[in-house]
Every structure is written in structure tokens, then in C-alpha cells.
């Protein structure tokens, strides 16, 4: 069953064409990885899919699909009066009157992502960037969404947590039938984790299963002859403004 259909998607901002005539579809319960060099328009693609930037063309989600987004960068000022529990409650309509089950459920969700239960009472602003990223992933998955858009989910966390996030992605995909769209610079992860890959450099260059699509020739076309080495060395660390 199809969960997303994109046709002739073009994004122009400030006179520059960031995405040019991109067309693809995504089936339910698959993991689609978006790869490409810095400035290729990967984050812009996510923002267009979410309606956060103006675009031309056609973007259609399956009716009623609940879509959540884990952005690449998320910071909270240290003095923000907001506890971790309250941050989770922002995802629930019962902000003022949470039930006990909800709070018990939070402890379980935090445990899955390696956060101790005592952080629930701490202000969000004092968490480290790695803890905040874990919290954001946990927050996004809390209400069992149909589709999750992860923009470099492991950019500011240690390798161990990276493995946890990819394991969670596979689990929500296989067990809950969720669809995952993932931006990643780590081609090893993409090869082992994704069902399909979408090579993007402003235009859609190739798409298909990773083993068949990420050939040396395709990578050279996507990143250039120097870029292949650059990305292999800097996997997971490169800042992406796309």
C-alpha cells in the first residue's frame, strides 16, 4: 500500500532551485534512505513533504497518515522552564491533566532509548545534545505515528545510540507497520538498514534497493570522485544545510 506519492516536486527559494522535478513513491512499512552530498536538498525535501516550505508539484500522503518529524538540530535554552515530563506532554492533548498510565509509559519509553527515569523531572534545557536527541526520538515515537521522518538522527550521539536508533527504526517498521524516511550520511548504515535508497542532488539521480543502487559508478555520479572518499571518512559527522 502506498503511503506517499511525490510528483514533479520543485522548490525554489531566494531565486535558487533547491529541488528540481523530483518524482517518487513510498510504500507502507518500508525504510527509505535519502542520500546525497551537502546542499543536495535532502532537508529541503523533508520540509517540502511536511509543507514547511513552499513548493510546486504534487505531494500526497495516504489519507489519515500521522506523520512526525525528528529535525537535525533542536536546542532548548537552558533557562526554559520545562521538565522532560512536560516536554512529552506537549505530544499529548492532556497537557494539564495527564493520567498516571501516561507517566508510567514514559519511563518505559525512556528506558528503550537508554535514558534513566530520573531525567523526567529535570529541565529539558540542561540535557546534553545527545540526551536531547534521544529525547526527541522518543517524543516522536510516543504516539505510535504511521510515518517518521528522521533527519540525521544520529549526528550528535555516540555510536552505541546510533545502533539503538536503527534497531528501533527496523522494529517500528516490521512490528507496527510504520514507514521511515531517513536522511543519513552513513552509507554503511543505509546499506544494512534501508529497504530503498533515494540518491538526491537537487534532482533525483537514482532510486532502488541499496545493494543495486549504491554502485561505485552511482556514488561517483552523486558525490563526485573526491566526495566518495570525503563522505566515507566523515560519515555521520558532516553538517548538512541541504
Amino acid at each position, binding site marked *: 500500500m502506498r503511503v506517499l506519492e511525490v510528483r514533479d516536486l520543485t522548490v525554489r527559494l531566494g531565486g535558487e532551485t533547491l529541488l528540481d522535478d523530483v518524482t517518487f513513491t513510498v510504500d507502507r512499512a518500508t525504510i527509505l534512505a535519502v542520500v546525497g552530498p551537502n546542499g543536495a536538498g535532502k532537508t529541503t525535501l523533508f520540509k517540502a513533504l511536511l509543507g514547511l516550505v513552499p513548493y510546486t508539484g504534487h505531494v500526497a500522503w495516504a489519507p489519515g497518515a500521522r506523520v512526525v518529524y525528528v*529535525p537535525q538540530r533542536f536546542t532548548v535554552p537552558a533557562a526554559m522552564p520545562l521538565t522532560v515530563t512536560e516536554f512529552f506532554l506537549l505530544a499529548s492533548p492532556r497537557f494539564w491533566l495527564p493520567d498516571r498510565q501516561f507517566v508510567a509509559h514514559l519511563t518505559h519509553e525512556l528506558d528503550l532509548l537508554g535514558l534513566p527515569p530520573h531525567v523526567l523531572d529535570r529541565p529539558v534545557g540542561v540535557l546534553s545534545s545527545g540526551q536531547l536527541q534521544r529525547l526527541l526520538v522518543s517524543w516522536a515515537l510516543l504516539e505510535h505515528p504511521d510515518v517518521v521522518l528522521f533527519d540525521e538522527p544520529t549526528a550528535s550521539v555516540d555510536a552505541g545510540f546510533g545502533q539503538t536508533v536503527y534497531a528501533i527504526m527496523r522494529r517500528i517498521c516490521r512490528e507496527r507497520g510504520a514507514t521511515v524516511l531517513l536522511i543519513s550520511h552513513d552509507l554503511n548504515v543505509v546499506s544494512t538498514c534501508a529497504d530503498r535508497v533515494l540518491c538526491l542532488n537537487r534532482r533525483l539521480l537514482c532510486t532502488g534497493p541499496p545493494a543495486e543502487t549504491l554502485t561505485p559508478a552511482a556514488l561517483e555520479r552523486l558525490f563526485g570522485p573526491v566526495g566518495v572518499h570525503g563522505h566515507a571518512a566523515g560519515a555521520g559527522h558532516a553538517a548538512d544545510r541541504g
Partner: protein
Amino acid sequence: MLLTGADAVPAAGTLAQQLAIAAAVGASSGAIGAFVVLKRMALVGDALSHVALPGIALALAYGLDPLWGIVVSLLLAAGLVWWLQDQTGLPVDALVGLLFTASLAVGILLIPDAEILESLFGAFPALSAPELAITLGSALAALGVTFAFARRFLLRVLSEDLARVAGAGRGYDLLLLVVFCGVVALGIKLVGTLLMGALTIIPASIARNVAGGMRAYMMGSAACGAAVAVAGTALAAWWSLRPGPTIILLGVVVFVFSLPFAARAGK
């Protein structure tokens, strides 16, 4: 000039009426002020309240109740700020500063001398029963809307992208601005145009020093707004002072006493 003595204070409603208005307007100022401080719009309240002055002047010129001039001018200002922000991408405070500080000068020139002090520093006029009901009802409605939409307002403070994905679009910025203007319009009667900005930010600043979480911060800010406004009004009546400056000074004193809590929490 120290404004003391019965001559300096215009004819006012009964003390019970004054205290009821102070409680309702103080609570709604504190509640919306919680977001005004988080969104770094503290000075917007000052500028917005100055926008009321030309409105007051026009209402007086046409023989209308100044409140209508205040409400219309503030709502127009809120819509204009919201629209210009979308068009230019400039921060709200820059736009408000650019467009509306001149309103103070225009208002001062247009308002008759006899009404200037009341406009600038506030007064409790004697209200008829329907007027009192409208004032209290509007203040409580603003309080209710602020708490009801707190989750979405807060999402927009944290991240524009996350908020929009969660269904809290830019319309909630406009709603917050409209509630803010409504509260400023009500508060101008209480503390005057010069001091109204302070009535929205002082309770929130006190609550932020003391509270650890968002729910405690918001409830604390609303409660603090009500308590400071009621106590200030009572003290002003007791000592025959103008209520506006008395309320604001009392708030500043409470803020000073709240500072050690912030230092202890390492904020």
C-alpha cells in the same frame, strides 16, 4: 511630581469593584505574560500599549468610550505586526519598535491635557454593571484561552518546524498576539499605557525565578499577577495613591525577593 491625595486620583468605582477588576486583569496579564517572556516579546507590550494612545485620542474626539479606541487600535496593530512579520521576516520587536513608538508622540499631542495622566498611568473609573461584566468576562476569557492553548503556544516557542508538523501553525502566533492585545487593552484602564507592559512581564519574571516546570511557571505567573494587582490596588486605596504605579512597584519588590530562588536553582 508625586501623585498623592484625593485630588490626584480620578473618581473611582467601589473598592470591591476595583479589587475584582485587579484580580481578573492581573491573572490574565500574568498568564499571557508567561509566553510574552518566553517569546522575548517583553518590549512589544510596551510598544503595543503606546499604540493605544492615538486610539484613545480618536475615541475622545468622537465622544466615544476610550476603551473602544484602545481595542480597535490594538487589534489593528496586532494584525499589522503579524502580517508584516510574514512579509519581511523581521523580528516582532523590531517591527513594533519601528512602527509604533511614534504612536506615543502622536497620542500625547492629540489627547486633551485633562485626560493625559489617566491615559498614561491608569485609573479605575466607576463602571456600570454591564461594563463591569464585560471587563471581567473579557479578562477571564483571555485567561481561559491562554491556558487552553498553552500546549500549542509552547510548541511554537520551542520549534517552528515541530509545531507546524504537530498542527500548531502561524495562526497560533496571531491568536497569542490578539490575546496579548486584549489583555493590554484591559490593563490600560488599570495601570495606564506607560506601565501596562510591566504588568505582563513582572509576574512571569517572578514565576520563572521560582518555578521549575512549565505548568508551575504558568500557574505561578497568573497567580502572581492577580496577587500583585489586588495587593497594589488595596495599598493604593489605603494610602490614596495612583493604583498603576503602586501595583508595578509592588511587583518589582516581589521580583527582587524572588531573585535568591533563581540564584539557588542556578538559572
